[in-house]
């Protein structure tokens, strides 16, 4: 601690007061050094909490929390306005998935079927391994037709690994459930086909009206 004034380098002087905010060294007063008043103060705080009981606990299984519509939970496969699976089997989600949990098999549609003549492909199988998934939402971001979405369902349980492989029917049923419960996620243009799937004239002639995409899109991205 002895200062050496003859030192060649600049002597150590505290930096100017303007640059440095000086903090006083912590001091302890007489009452604090007694400890007992501080302990009594602490006890009075804890007793106050104990007496004026306003528990913040939520009785979980009976009282469910309201989950934000922006939550990324269990996946769903959306239906279009005809009730078909909206997915066009483009494999973008499977490619984007960092956890490699989506497995799609595509099939060409039967062009003679009036139900399917406006679509080229649809997924024959669509399996998501809910245990592998990291719920990052990149599938939903990649989807050009807003077919796959993450819902706000958070309490997913199962008794086996096989049970947690969600196939197309299960994912569509999740869609039906969430639509019925009014729990649509808010991130994508839900309820309308994305731009890639509605360019054909067939779609317009089939539905007879243009889909509600622009308004919805403005709503969610505007």
């Amino acid at each position, binding site marked *: *601690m002895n*200062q*050496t004034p003859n*030192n*060649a*380098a*600049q*002597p*150590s*002087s*505290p930096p100017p007061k303007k640059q440095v905010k000086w903090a006083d*060294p*912590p*001091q*302890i*007063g*007489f*009452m*604090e*050094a*007694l*400890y*007992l008043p501080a*302990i009594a103060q*602490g*006890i009075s*705080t*804890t*007793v106050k*909490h*104990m007496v004026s*009981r*306003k*528990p*913040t*606990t939520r009785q979980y299984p009976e009282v469910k929390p309201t989950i934000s519509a922006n939550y990324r939970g269990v996946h769903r496969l959306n239906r279009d306005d005809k009730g078909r699976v909206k997915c066009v089997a483009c494999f973008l989600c499977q490619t984007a998935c960092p956890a490699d949990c989506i497995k799609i098999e595509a099939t060409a549609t039967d062009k003679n079927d009036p139900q399917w003549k406006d679509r080229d492909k649809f997924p024959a199988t669509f399996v998501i391994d809910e245990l592998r998934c990291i719920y990052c939402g990149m599938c939903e971001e990649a989807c050009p037709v807003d077919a796959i979405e993450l819902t706000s369902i958070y309490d997913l349980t199962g008794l086996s690994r096989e049970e947690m492989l969600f196939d197309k029917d299960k994912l569509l049923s999740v869609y039906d459930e969430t639509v019925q419960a009014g729990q649509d996620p808010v991130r994508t243009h839900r309820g309308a086909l994305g731009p890639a799937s509605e360019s054909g004239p067939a779609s317009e002639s089939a539905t007879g009206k243009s889909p509600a995409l622009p308004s919805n899109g403005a709503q969610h991205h505007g």
Partner: protein
Amino acid sequence: MTWNWNTIWPLLVAIGIVLAVIPILGLYLTFIERKVAAWIQDRIGPNRVGPFGLLQAVADGIKIFLKEQVIPDHVFKTVYFFAPTIGLICAMLSIAVIPFGPASPTPSDGFRAIIAPGVDIGILFVMGVSSLSAYGIILGGWASNNKYSMYGAVRSCAQFISYEIPLGLSLLGVIMATGSLNIESIVAAQGDGIANWNIWWQPLAAIMFFTAALAETNRLPFDLPECEQELVGGFHTEYSGIKFVLFFLAEYTHVVAVCFLTALLFLGGWHFPGLTGPVDSSLSGFLMRWMVLLAKVSLVFAVIVQLRWTLPRFRFDQLMGLAWCALIPLGIANFLGLVVVLSLDLPRWTLAPYSIALLFASALINARQVTKRAKDLAARSFALPSTERSAAVNAQPQLTR
């Protein structure tokens, strides 16, 4: 004392009461502690099993007995098995000479609320046996063959050795004034009204006893031997199932013993304004005194629980500092005052202002020291010339491949 049925049955009854009540008490004290913790932290606490969660303790007990006992390969099996038992036996033994209800210094025939009545080395026995319970922790930590367990064991060893001294010093006043180590006699000496309670003329000793005893029980703020944040679980890291519970039962038995001792030695035991004088034989008087004693014990336990959720854990050097730099000097100074008062036949109440003066003096010294240390620290950070500072920085070991 002749051994016949008339002398043996009160003994068996008292032992039966202690052996039956202590485990149940341990479970329910855990429950109370969880509830209090929840209330303090603005939670609800266990409320699912039974009305108000009252059966939670029972459920815990059942769970504990049915739990798998993991015995790691690397432990020293013999010692590993016996360590929790040693801890519990020592804690239980100290209860033997502590009256758990009103007891007269001259043991009567019939039921007595103490296992071993009229033991003339009462307090000495309690201190000796309860400090043996450190063996349970030390052996458990050593036999676990795990560095965290070992750290916990070594810490508890140092803690026990350090806090034995202030514990003994704080009891000297009570013992010397009564002239007996017999706990019943000490309580009987406080029998004439509330003014005779030992806490009034020995307030400092009472605080010291409570602090040191809390440290001996390994409870927060002195629970460094188990210290979850630093040592995983401390000495009980490798223990599971019923053996783990034996450790905790030992701790709670210890806490119960401390509660009783504080109430008996400093708070007048089963005496209360209106309930003074020697223990009478009438049943109602006996029960009233018992209730008074249990109320005082509950009060002490409430303070212990409240302290647990109020104070943060000590750092280890602070723990040692509290014992060696504060409690032991204070105890010796208190003892000197006591000797002067007793040998000059001064009135006892003169010790109360002396205690308070001691406390204030220690606080003054403490405040001075802390402030000085803080100033030194602040001065040092800019006292080095810049070249020396950079040299010091350069001198730090470099990472090499």
